[in-house]
């Protein structure tokens, strides 16, 4: 067992025992849901169903119901896609990258962050599918034998790389998440009293028994999956950025896109984790497990990735001038001073200025301030994608073809609808699934729990110092 410096802030506050952890996490699942849950779920469901309605209308009528035109052929659809994929980066980063770096604070947040990731990637995946117009032929993106036509899919195309990247990311993320959930479902199964929930959780727990050999395998599988998921996190958003970077559109044709997009994705993902976690810890009484220290760590990640994003913006701007390519230079002058100047400056303010405030310790430890900044960052990151996509193409090489993009109400409905659906999934998760990785939190109780840390003569400290 690892020893931890006494001066380091404990990760689990209060005098918790193993049983207390089980109680704290299982209580919200076993008790009746509070009224606010039903209200929030109702609102999210209505918004989500409205989005489904908009999608069905789009599928029945055609992609023309979006506000796209000949010049702006990509707008909100791909903006929302990249925004959701970006949000979906925090969960795997927290559970995989931080596992490899042995960051114990991840254990309190990885389960719900991964759930958020999976639901966000669901939402992201919707956009390319409905952009096909004919959703039912979505499987044509797979390399299927040729009775469907004379060609294979084009393996030279970044759009096809995206198909592989997103589906691998989603399915591996799902497996990683579920393997961690199995032992916790077993805990709920063994506590369940009502026959229906006992039956349900028995099925979900796959007959987990907690044998020593099972745990031995569990730990190795978690480690190897983390090792596999780590390059995956970085590859997914790199590949998403190739969709733009491999084109020859001024403003897109940039080699810094992959690292810049990955940093932006982690930035927006952590912001979304903060938004959700700050509400969840309060609503579900998990203040002892997710507290100021966790929020502060996440704010530091937001600060670092936000600074990378800011540096990338400025580099991009500098290179557009330094390259001497007038089209490239115009793309950036047009972003900052053209008709979409407000979007550009909204992006700059939200993404470059706001994370810098996290240098101040009282601010990054303030929960209210964090909550506000997390929403500001999410808005800013949506504008970043909108600026990159729409302002780069709305004024192309021929001024006669210049155009503006105005979203239709279907654009808006589909976007808002995905937010609704996302919350439907997340609220269901918070109601029926263990939102804290029970088995993992229990392993750090003795090394990072407040009651154990403050007892220097505890038997864990002397008999295990040799490990």
């Amino acid at each position, binding site marked *: 067992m690892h020893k931890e410096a006494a001066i380091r802030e404990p990760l689990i506050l209060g005098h918790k025992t193993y049983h207390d952890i089980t109680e704290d996490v299982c209580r919200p699942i076993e008790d009746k849901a509070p009224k606010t849950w039903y209200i929030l779920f109702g609102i999210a469901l209505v918004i989500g169903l409205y989005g489904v309605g908009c999608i069905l209308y789009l599928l029945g009528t055609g992609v023309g119901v979006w506000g796209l035109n000949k010049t702006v052929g990509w707008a909100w659809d791909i903006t929302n896609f990249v925004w959701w994929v970006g949000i979906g980066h925090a969960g795997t980063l927290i559970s995989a990258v931080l596992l490899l770096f042995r960051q114990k604070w991840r254990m309190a947040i990885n389960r719900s962050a991964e759930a958020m990731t999976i639901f966000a990637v669901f939402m992201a995946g919707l956009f390319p599918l409905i952009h096909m117009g004919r959703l039912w032929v979505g499987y044509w993106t797979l390399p299927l034998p040729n009775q469907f036509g004379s060609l294979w899919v084009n393996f030279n195309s970044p759009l096809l790389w995206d198909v592989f990247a997103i589906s691998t990311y989603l399915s591996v993320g799902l497996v990683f998440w579920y393997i961690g959930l199995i032992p916790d479902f077993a805990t709920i199964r063994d506590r369940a009293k009502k026959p229906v929930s006992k039956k349900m959780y028995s099925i979900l727990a796959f007959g987990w028994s907690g044998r020593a050999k099972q745990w031995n*395998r569990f730990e190795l599988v978690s480690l190897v*999956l983390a090792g596999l998921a780590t390059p995956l996190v970085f590859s997914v958003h790199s590949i998403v950025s190739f969709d733009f970077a491999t084109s020859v559109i001024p403003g897109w044709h940039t080699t810094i896109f992959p690292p810049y997009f990955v940093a932006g994705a982690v930035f927006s993902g952590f912001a979304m984790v903060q938004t959700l976690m700050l509400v969840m810890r309060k609503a579900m009484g998990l203040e002892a497990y997710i507290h100021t220290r966790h929020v502060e760590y996440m704010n530091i990640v937001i600060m670092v990735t936000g600074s990378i994003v800011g540096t990338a913006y400025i580099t991009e701007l500098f290179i557009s001038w330094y390259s001497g390519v007038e089209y490239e230079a115009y793309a950036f002058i047009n972003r900052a001073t053209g008709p979409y100047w407000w979007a550009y400056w909204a992006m700059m303010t939200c993404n470059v200025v706001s994370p810098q405030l996290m240098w101040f310790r009282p601010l990054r430890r303030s929960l209210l301030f964090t909550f506000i900044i997390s929403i500001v960052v999410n808005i800013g990151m949506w504008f970043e994608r909108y600026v990159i996509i729409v302002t780069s193409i709305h004024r192309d090489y021929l001024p006669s073809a210049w155009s503006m993009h105005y979203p239709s109400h279907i654009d808006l409905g589909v976007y808002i609808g995905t937010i609704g659906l996302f919350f439907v999934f997340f609220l269901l998760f918070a109601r029926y699934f263990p939102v804290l990785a029970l088995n993992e939190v229990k392993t750090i109780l003795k090394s990072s729990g407040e009651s154990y840390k403050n007892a220097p003569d505890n038997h864990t400290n002397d008999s295990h110092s040799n490990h």
Partner: protein
Amino acid sequence: MAETVIYAMYDDDDVLKDGAKKLVAKGVKISEVFSPFPIHGIDPIIGIKNTRLGIMAFIYGLTGTVLATYGMRFFMISDWPMNIGGKPNGSYLDNMLAFVPITFEFTVLCAAHGMAITYLLRNKTLPGLPAQNPDPRTTDDKFVMEIRLSENTKFDAAELETMLKETGIIELDQKELK
């Protein structure tokens, strides 16, 4: 043949581990430990070998790499070579760079899913299988050590129980398994 099994329950992982060390030193064979979370360092004490799933993950990953390489070579080079802007897909090596992302993704896909499926099968954890932990509290905060009489012919049940009681157990249970 009916078999007598002794279940000794502890309420602390470190007490169980120390107890296991003492029992093993006396020559007792501990056949299983049930716990709510992984007890680090218990495996060598009770003689559990490290899992070889990592090797399997590597093999699955390698399968993915090979499949992706052969697949893309077939699709893009031999079956239907494309001629884009007068630059035909001549050989695999000429086009290899464009195939790197999918080769990587497919490697990860095969390694992760292959390992996950093997893990579930080896653990005998699949949807609908019954739980086998002797006490429901072992998934909450209790730790149970399982000792089988047939594996400990040197001792009888009473001797084992006396030895167990010295290790700080909180409950002792004896069952006849068929």
